[in-house]
């Protein structure tokens, strides 16, 4: 065998020979996500592992994604539907439902903002997606990453890459997307409304809430049980006051470990064939519409509450109903303070905001049941 032949054989065994144009495109997309994470600080905890996962699976011949490969094993956590509920366990341990319990009527605002999900479902169906795909795209409007990943992994696994990227990108863009929608729908007088202080709630209420919510939700929307159950278990750890170790682990070490695996696994779904398509562009457009409609629906119900309460409710807090904790509540605080510098709406907006987490998980359960 000549030396040249050996060199030629070696070349065909390298990744260079197998690298397709699509792979090169996806390496650029992976690089872009890492750039957005590091330079722009857009959800870096997720975009960095997602971007790197996309790079890993677009380097050919490694077998990393094939059955028995490293990513194939890591992806088990999504295939089985385990990772998103584990993230929710940590989210529950981090979430203070106090502002919601103090003003339970704000739960309605968290529900109204889910309207973006159902309107986008119709829009996606009209554009030719089947029901399972349309439902997975629509859940982007719930503004909740783990919920979007959970629902998509159950219904339309092949769209996981674009849907997760759209969901996390828009969450990072909440401070840009929401204010124009809020301002278009409210008057300055409404935005200036100062609300009464959020009062502390008793420990007994805080402990009973996660238990009773789990029972009520699981009976009403059984398919939402994995997400709501873990969310509320985490919250019970937090509020019980006697298992600080479990609460701290759920909201730090555990959620960090799962986030690493979840990010890499999501990134691994970004193959050129599945990502570089017209569908991805449509998903990104529909996701934006879902966010805006959700913000608008929440704000409009907020306006109704403003009228019913004779001006005691600032309608903007409805916009915080789109989950995306705590970004959406921060937006309300900022826009409110711009209208009235002495106005501090942050805690009032946290009520609908945390209600939005419950609302989008329940919406996911409803969509799962409808698709079932």
């Amino acid at each position, binding site marked *: 065998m000549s030396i040249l032949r050996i060199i030629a054989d070696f070349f065909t065994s390298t990744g260079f020979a197998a690298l397709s144009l699509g792979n090169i495109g996806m390496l650029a997309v992976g690089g872009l996500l890492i750039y957005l994470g590091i330079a722009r600080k857009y959800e870096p905890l997720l975009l960095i592992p997602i971007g790197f996962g996309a790079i890993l699976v677009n380097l050919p011949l490694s077998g990393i994604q094939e059955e028995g490969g490293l990513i194939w094993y890591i992806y088990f956590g999504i295939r089985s539907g385990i990772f998103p509920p584990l993230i929710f366990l940590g989210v529950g341990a981090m979430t203070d439902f106090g502002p919601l319990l103090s003003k339970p009527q704000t739960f309605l605002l968290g529900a109204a903002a889910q309207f973006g999900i159902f309107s986008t479902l119709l829009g996606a169906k009209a554009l030719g997606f089947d029901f399972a795909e349309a439902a997975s795209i629509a859940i982007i409007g719930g503004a909740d990453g783990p919920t979007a990943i959970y629902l998509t992994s159950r219904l339309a696994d092949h769209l996981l890459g674009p849907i997760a990227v759209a969901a996390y990108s828009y969450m990072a863009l909440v401070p840009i997307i929401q204010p124009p929608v809020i301002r278009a729908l409210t008057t300055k007088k409404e935005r200036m409304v100062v609300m009464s202080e959020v009062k502390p709630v008793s420990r007994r209420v805080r402990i009973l809430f996660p238990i009773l919510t789990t029972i009520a939700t699981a009976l009403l929307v059984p398919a939402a049980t994995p997400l709501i159950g873990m969310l509320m278990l985490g919250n019970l750890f937090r509020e019980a006051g006697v298992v600080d170790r479990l609460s701290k682990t759920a909201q730090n070490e555990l959620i960090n470990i799962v986030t690493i695996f979840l990010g890499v696994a999501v990134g691994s779904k970004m193959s050129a064939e599945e990502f570089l398509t017209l569908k991805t562009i449509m998903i990104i457009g529909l996701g934006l519409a879902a966010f805006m409609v959700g913000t608008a629906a929440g704000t409009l119900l907020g306006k109704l509450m403003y009228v019913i309460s004779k001006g005691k409710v600032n309608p903007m807090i409805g916009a915080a109903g789109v989950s995306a904790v705590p970004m959406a509540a921060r937006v309300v605080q900022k826009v409110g303070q711009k209208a009235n510098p002495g106005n501090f709406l*942050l805690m009032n907006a946290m009520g609908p905001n945390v209600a939005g987490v419950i609302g989008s998980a329940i919406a996911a359960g409803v969509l799962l049941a409808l698709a079932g």
Partner: protein
Amino acid sequence: MTGVVKEIKVGPGHTVEEGQVVLIMEAMKMDIDVPSPLAGIVAEVSVKPGDTVNAKQQLMVIH
């Protein structure tokens, strides 16, 4: 609203205007500007950075 005092922008003897940011507090990892409700001279600052403060609590006295 409950939060932690992050930075105090004025001290006793300073002249402040209405709407001027006199204090920055932090809640939910967000910096929130607290404006002065009136114009006057700061007589006393009642809190220090790191203090947890609640709604309606006195932060400073402005004459």
